[in-house]
């Protein structure tokens, strides 16, 4: 069974009422949706284009860093390309360049739709996005040249790069809040909570992290308070918000439980915010701080189960729909990865587990389950859903989507398995003082090769995705036909299938 064929591009545009009726909408609702999409079109396409460039560049840096760990003689004559710098460039490009920019684009598209209005301040949001990316480029070039503030996740220089990031992020946030202030709905959908939350939390965290006064072990506490929470309150918050939109939307089914959404949101805020010190387990900070974070890490079961049950129960019984919608496939796998990475994180925080896994590649694998399996997959899903609605035509090739999906899923699976195994081997070797340290290095080498192989697949997948995105933007059919309802995915997918079967 295949999805219904795309309407040929020369079909004359039916009038709005007929279109609305075909989608089960009132004409004024469709009007609102079209105007919302039109208001955010340019800035969202800009954000996605920039994000995809950073995905390609950032992943290439990641692959280079990976190769260097088992091929240490590679490119050792250039300080710009030493491991410590390319690794940091990779982290900044994929987190702040790719994931943040893609999620900002997604949020800018979602918000007007969810509050039934146009995007307010698209102009200054675009300026903000440009400033944010200038800050990123300055930060990354600085890191490659050896200018670093020295704290992980916060290396971009305080007086060079940070002002651009703060101003840029602020201008984008302003557009978010202006849009919500102009809303025509009474109720705020759960995705809106997460998006607004992210734009309150991230500035607080960034200002704290970049404050110049910290030193000694206090700076370590600040460092990991920031670095852990930037995942939870920025990347995770916006990704969960997106998952809450796309899963019900594609399935044409409401979210399983409103109460669980509420519980998931507020308990995430309460418990995630206290997790950071588990990165310093056993370290020279007061034990009560680490213990607080371990307790909070275990309490993360509550938001994770609330959100997980809510999202998964929305899908249950409809898993076959994953075959038809690339958005659903990516987002549902992202949601599964979120549950998995969170439970893994809770266990890893326990002292008995972290005795082995702390200071090893285990942590790097864990962060990629979250940053890639969850956040990046949600971004892919979001882009597959949003872009056709902005350019006015469907993705040119389902084959390219399949290649993209298979490459990145296979790649991240190999990556995580290989590196997790390497981390455990390394940790066990280091814990036994009878085993020389060199053994803990030797035993990781096969896993590090495995990681590089997984990384190559992921990079290939990104190239396929970027090529497809480029084709999508270049396709001429969509131009000037934005009112035409061209996508079968515009209707909830099961709707389409049932209609087809009937």
């Amino acid at each position: 069974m295949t999805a219904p064929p795309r309407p040929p591009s020369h079909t004359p545009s039916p009038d709005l009422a007929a279109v609305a009726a075909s989608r089960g909408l009132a004409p004024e609702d469709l009007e609102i949706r079209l105007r919302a999409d039109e208001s955010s079109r340019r800035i969202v396409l800009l954000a996605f284009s920039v994000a995809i460039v950073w995905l390609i560049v950032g992943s290439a840096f990641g692959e280079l860093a990976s190769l260097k760990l088992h091929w240490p003689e590679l490119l050792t004559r250039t300080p710009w390309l030493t491991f410590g710098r390319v690794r940091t460039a990779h982290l900044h490009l994929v987190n702040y360049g790719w994931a943040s920019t893609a999620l900002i684009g997604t949020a800018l598209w979602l918000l007007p739709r969810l509050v039934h209005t146009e995007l307010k301040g698209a102009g200054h949001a675009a300026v903000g996005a440009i400033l944010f990316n200038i800050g990123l480029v300055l930060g990354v070039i600085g890191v490659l040249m050896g200018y670093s503030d020295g704290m992980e996740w916060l290396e971009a220089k305080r007086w060079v790069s940070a002002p651009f990031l703060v101003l840029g992020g602020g201008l984008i946030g302003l557009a978010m809040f202006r849009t919500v202030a102009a809303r025509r709905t009474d109720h705020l959908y759960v995705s809106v909570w997460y998006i607004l939350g992210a734009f309150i939390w991230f500035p607080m965290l960034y200002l704290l992290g970049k404050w110049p006064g910290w030193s000694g072990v206090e700076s370590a506490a600040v460092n990991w308070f920031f670095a852990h929470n930037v995942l939870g309150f920025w990347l995770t918050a916006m990704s969960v918000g997106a998952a809450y939109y796309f899963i019900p939307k594609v399935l044409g089914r409401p979210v399983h439980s409103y109460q669980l959404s509420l519980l998931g949101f507020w308990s995430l805020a309460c418990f995630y915010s206290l997790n950071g010190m588990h990165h310093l387990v056993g370290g020279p900070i007061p034990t009560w701080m680490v213990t607080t974070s371990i307790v909070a890490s275990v309490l993360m079961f509550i938001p994770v189960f609330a959100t997980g049950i809510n999202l998964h129960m929305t899908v249950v019984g409809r898993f076959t729909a994953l075959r038809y919608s690339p958005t659903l496939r990516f987002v549902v796998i992202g949601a599964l990865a979120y549950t998995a990475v969170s439970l893994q994180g809770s266990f890893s925080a326990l002292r008995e587990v972290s005795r082995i896994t702390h200071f090893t590649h285990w942590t790097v694998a864990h962060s990629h389950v979250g940053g890639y399996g969850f956040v990046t997959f949600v971004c892919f899903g979001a882009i597959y859903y949003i872009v056709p609605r902005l350019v006015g035509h469907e993705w040119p090739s389902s084959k390219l989507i399949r290649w993209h999906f298979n490459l990145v899923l296979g790649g991240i699976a190999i990556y995580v398995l290989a590196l997790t195994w390497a981390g455990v081997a390394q940790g066990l070797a280091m814990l036994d003082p009878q085993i020389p340290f060199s053994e803990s290095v030797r035993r990781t080498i096969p896993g590090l090769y495995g990681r590089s192989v997984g990384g190559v697949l992921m990079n290939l997948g990104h190239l396929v995705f970027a090529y497809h995105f480029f084709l999508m933007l270049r396709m001429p059919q969509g131009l000037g036909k934005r009112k035409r309802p061209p996508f079968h995915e515009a209707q909830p997918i099961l709707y389409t299938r049932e209609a087809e079967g009937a």
Partner: protein
Amino acid sequence: MTRVWLLALGAFAIMASAMSLLVFIPQAMFASVEAAEALPRYTQRQARGRELYIANGCVYCHSQQVRDPAFTTDVDRGWGTRATVPADYVYDKPHLLGTMRTGPDLINVGQRLPSVEWHLLHLYDPRAVNEWSTMPRFTWFFEERDEGQLIPGEKPITLPPGRAPKGKIVVPTEDGYAIVDYLISLNRTYPVSDTNRVMKTIGGRGDHGGK
């Protein structure tokens, strides 16, 4: 939820409380931490070396902390004589505690490996020292010059047979000496007072309680 202000206030308040608990309250406690008596300040050259350590991302593979012997085997492995405490890090801005041990812990590397020659050779060619090492080479801390171009007073490093570039001598730069000076300064094996040890556990001075 229907009220944006309530959402914003709640989100802000929760984050502010978490910051208070894990950053601001500890900051007030750490205010009473003084540098360990035996801990010297970094010299200018050591401080330069520390900058180079940061610039080249050493922290992504090397931690600088010894954990409690009751919890791990850091001490048995020979990385230190005791768990490190907040008083050991007072002059570190920012901290370089690290989260990864692709390479060994370095907080006491100056005590373990006090030889300048060893460190210079190891930075120039790690695998000339340990064939299993995966550390990058830091060739930009050295100048490779034709034999006979030695400036009086300079000391080229001695490479094992076959590891030297043909017909060249390898001379450390000022930066090369600076980073080695920093590495050798890393030594927290001096004893610390009970007050400082208790600080590690409760985060305040000994007179707040403790054993």
